[in-house]
């Protein structure tokens, strides 16, 4: 008598197969071309913009600030675009092309499929961010050292050594520190949360365009919701409650707070990211990703094809 083999509810090898395949699929869509654009952007910035800064003590810091802000802008742009478009595209495409039929007809639990797809997208973003972070680190280190050298030569041998030391400390704080990598890591966490939101929407959406638009709306809400929350709290302190404030409170509770998952502005200004903040961001991001992935599975588990 034939007895069907037992299939575990969740399997790491199966998830890794789907994630690996999704990563390869995206790589073959030539998304890594963006990295070439990034490298060219950084090179062009160095060649044509950074050298033009003149005058004042702050010019050196401004150069480093511009390098960091441009790089983080590109990192944020790439990771957000990839998180939304790749996640929003992959599942509807599998349904439309009927490739999902052949996958789900194998002993593959739907949760494995969803997690695999999400991890594949995140792996691609992670690898890309590592490359960008590496490039930024090299450029930042090179520029910082070059700026320090020019400060030393400007002050000359007779300069005040305390002032010089202070300048070196300030420039080093703006240069390559662990905070640079922490900011990249937080950009990755933000992309992970956005991708999990896109995953959730794509499980019930009927078209890719709907998924894209709705995810972008949630992203925008997430970016301003901290300000909204503050306004609501102030209004409630004054005893003012309306339907709009109740609705806003609901939005605050349901949608992710992307202002919370962001440290790059501080790092651009040379501030230190406290370890506790990083830990909090990590926990909050994991919570959001787990929540939205669970909800995705809940809507996807009974979906009919």
């Amino acid at each position: 008598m034939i007895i069907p083999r037992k299939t575990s509810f969740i399997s790491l090898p199966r998830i890794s197969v789907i994630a690996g395949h999704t990563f390869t699929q995206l790589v073959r869509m030539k998304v890594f071309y963006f990295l070439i654009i990034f490298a060219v952007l950084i090179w062009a910035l160095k060649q044509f913009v950074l050298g033009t800064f003149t005058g004042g003590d702050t010019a050196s810091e401004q150069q480093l600030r511009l390098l960091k802000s441009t790089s983080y802008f590109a990192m944020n742009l790439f990771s957000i675009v990839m998180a939304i478009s790749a996640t929003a595209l992959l599942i509807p495409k599998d349904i439309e092309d009927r490739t999902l039929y052949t996958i789900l007809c194998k002993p593959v639990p739907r949760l494995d499929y969803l997690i695999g797809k999400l991890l594949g997208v995140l792996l691609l973003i992670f690898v890309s961010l590592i490359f960008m972070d590496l490039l930024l680190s090299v450029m930042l280190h090179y520029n910082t050292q070059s700026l320090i050298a020019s400060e030393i030569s400007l002050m000359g041998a007779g300069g005040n050594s305390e002032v010089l030391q202070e300048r070196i400390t300030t420039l080093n704080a703006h240069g390559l520190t662990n905070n640079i990598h922490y900011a990249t890591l937080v950009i990755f966490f933000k992309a992970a949360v956005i991708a999990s939101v896109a995953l959730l929407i794509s499980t019930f959406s009927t078209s890719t365009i709907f998924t894209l638009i709705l995810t972008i709306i949630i992203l925008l809400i997430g970016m301003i919701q901290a300000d909204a929350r503050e306004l609501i709290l102030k209004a409630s302190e004054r005893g003012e409650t309306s339907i709009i404030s109740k609705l806003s409170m609901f939005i605050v509770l349901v949608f992710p707070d992307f202002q919370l998952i962001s440290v790059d502005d501080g790092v651009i200004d040379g501030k230190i990211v406290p370890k506790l903040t990083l830990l909090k961001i990590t926990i909050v991001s994991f919570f959001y990703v787990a929540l939205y992935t669970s909800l995705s599975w809940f809507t996807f588990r009974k979906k009919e094809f």
Partner: protein
Amino acid sequence: MTDSGVTRDIAVEVRNLVKSYKSSFKRQTFQAVDNVSLQIESGEVYGLIGPNGSGKSTTMKAVLGLISPTAGSCRVFGADSTRVDARSEIGFLPENPYFYKHQTSAETLRFYGKLCGIRGKKLTNKVNELLELVSLEHARDRRLGGYSKGMLQRVGLAQALIQEPQLLILDEPTAGVDPIGSREIRDLILKLKSQGVTIFLCSHLLEQVQEVCDRVGIIFEGKMVNEGTLEELTEIRNQHEFIIKNASPALVQDIEDLIANNQQAEVVRSGKPRSSLEKLFIDTANEQKHNKKGNKS
């Protein structure tokens, strides 16, 4: 029970299956499958035939667990088809299978093999064996984006067989395949049947269904309207057929006279039996191949 009296396992059991779909605003209900029941014994080849939109694919999807029955149940080797476990013994070839175009056929088979938990040397051997079986060794490293419909169908068949399933579900297995490929798929179905694999197939090519199936179900507007063995379904009970080899014209005349003298019987049709166009095509192609080989040597 089989003809020989041996009791077999039930591979597929569909019991009073009902599948309804609601319209967008849930005002109207469309019943795609209406109280369908069928049983497929282990090792049997079962064909489900019916016009487009009759409920064949919906029944198959219910057996595959891709949709949940509105009422009734589907079981595969005793396991509820909505459970993932039931799929460990199923190989499925969808109609017009689409795969990831960026993969080669070897990569595709490796991917599906890994999903079924096959790894290492065993997987490599299995992929090589299946590519040879479906005659795609020459195109193993070509991306599927450049494959013809028939070649994709072969890849589909190979992926369906990757985990050596005990139940093979084939939806239009020869769609887009040329007559020679179609014949090869038919031979493969018969070979798998001889190995004890249960096959559940849907096809519009009734001649093919007749060639390979032990039992057939006819579904119409969501209802099972007829079901049985091919002999039961195709037998014309009040007619008899003789095919006589090397009969002289005199003997044929004698037989016709004998029937003419009988008050009840009448000749409905007589003449020389015809070969099928498919057989003619395959014989001609084989002959050409043979001549080409002969000329080369």
